[in-house]
């Protein structure tokens, strides 16, 4: 057998088969260098075995169980928090999605709705106010049947149309309402 540090190490650590062990032992009896190597390795092992860390006692298992339980609770708390955030985000997204078409519809309705003529800039303040009131109430008024222009506007808008002489065209759709 040739000199081999790996084999000597395996011998010291008991990693060889019985037959191989016998071979190494025979070699060690004749080879001083390998015997020296074995002495080193044995001393090294003995030093580690005698090291005070060998008797160091780990913390009691209760500490680990408490640590593990705390970690698990924390884990579920984190999951719960993340879940809540995701749910809120989804709800907010859905709300936005639902409200967005309504805004578009409102814009479209406003665009297509019959326009109420704004009183001309030359009218008096009272006339402007009356015109504005009619203007804002125009949509509501439109739902009423057009039996009498004055009566309709008074009942629907609560606005006396008598003083109005600035001819605001309230009902563009109905020609019977033209003053």
């Amino acid at each position, binding site marked *: 057998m040739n000199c081999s540090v790996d084999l000597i190490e395996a011998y010291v650590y008991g990693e060889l088969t019985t037959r191989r062990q016998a071979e190494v032992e025979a070699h060690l009896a004749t080879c001083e260098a390998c015997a020296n190597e074995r002495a080193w390795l044995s001393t*090294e092992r003995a*030093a580690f075995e*005698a090291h005070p*860390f060998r008797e160091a006692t780990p*913390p009691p298992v209760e500490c*680990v169980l408490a640590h*593990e339980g705390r*970690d698990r609770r924390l884990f579920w708390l984190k999951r719960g928090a993340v879940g809540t955030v995701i749910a809120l985000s989804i709800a907010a997204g859905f709300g936005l999605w639902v409200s967005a078409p309504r805004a578009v519809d409102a814009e479209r309705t406003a665009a297509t709705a019959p326009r109420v003529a704004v009183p001309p800039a030359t009218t008096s303040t009272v006339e402007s106010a009356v015109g504005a009131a009619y203007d804002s109430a125009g949509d509501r008024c439109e739902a009423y049947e057009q039996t009498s222009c004055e009566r309709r506007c008074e009942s629907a808008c609560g606005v006396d149309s008598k003083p109005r002489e600035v001819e605001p065209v309230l009902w563009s759709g109905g020609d019977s309402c033209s003053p």
Partner: protein
Amino acid sequence: MRAREDAVLVSAQLSVLNVQDREDDCASEGDTPSVRERALSRAYQELSQDVHRFAMHLTRNRALAADVTQETFVRAFRRLETLRVRERPLPWLLGIARNVVRESRHQAKRDGPPQERDGHVANVETMSPPTPERMMLDRELVQVVDGALDTLATDRRAALVLRVDQGMSYAEIAEVMGWTLAKAKVEVHRARSTLREHVRRYQGGLQ
């Protein structure tokens, strides 16, 4: 269903740890936490000594080593499914311990001045009464070896500890440390050279 799978998994891992689970009550839903706790307790009894010793060698600080040991087992149980059934659990646990030590080192670097090391033999000898083996060996030689270990870089020291103290093969050392086989051999060889140099110096001083 999930609890049953969990229990089966824990039992499988326990069988790997050679821990006998004689009770047959781990299938019901409500028992899951206790199954985990029992499994953790048994694994801890079996392997905590080795893990703690490794942590002591790496950190050379009792309080830090205790923290590392606890954290290692907690993490191990959180990732129990990553342990392959045929795999030896100790190298797997020591790999986790090594990562925990590295993380705590980085944390300590960020937080401020390093913690006081108490790894020298003179400081830790009060931990337990001396065994006959320890008394037989030259006490000074142990101190010399310990001093030499203290001079080694953490990874190199870890490699030597895994080989000499834990008796692991080079393949297992490579697995624990995340190295190639060749690197594991080189690191252990270099650590040994440093150790021998210290011992030679000590022996030369005696003559």
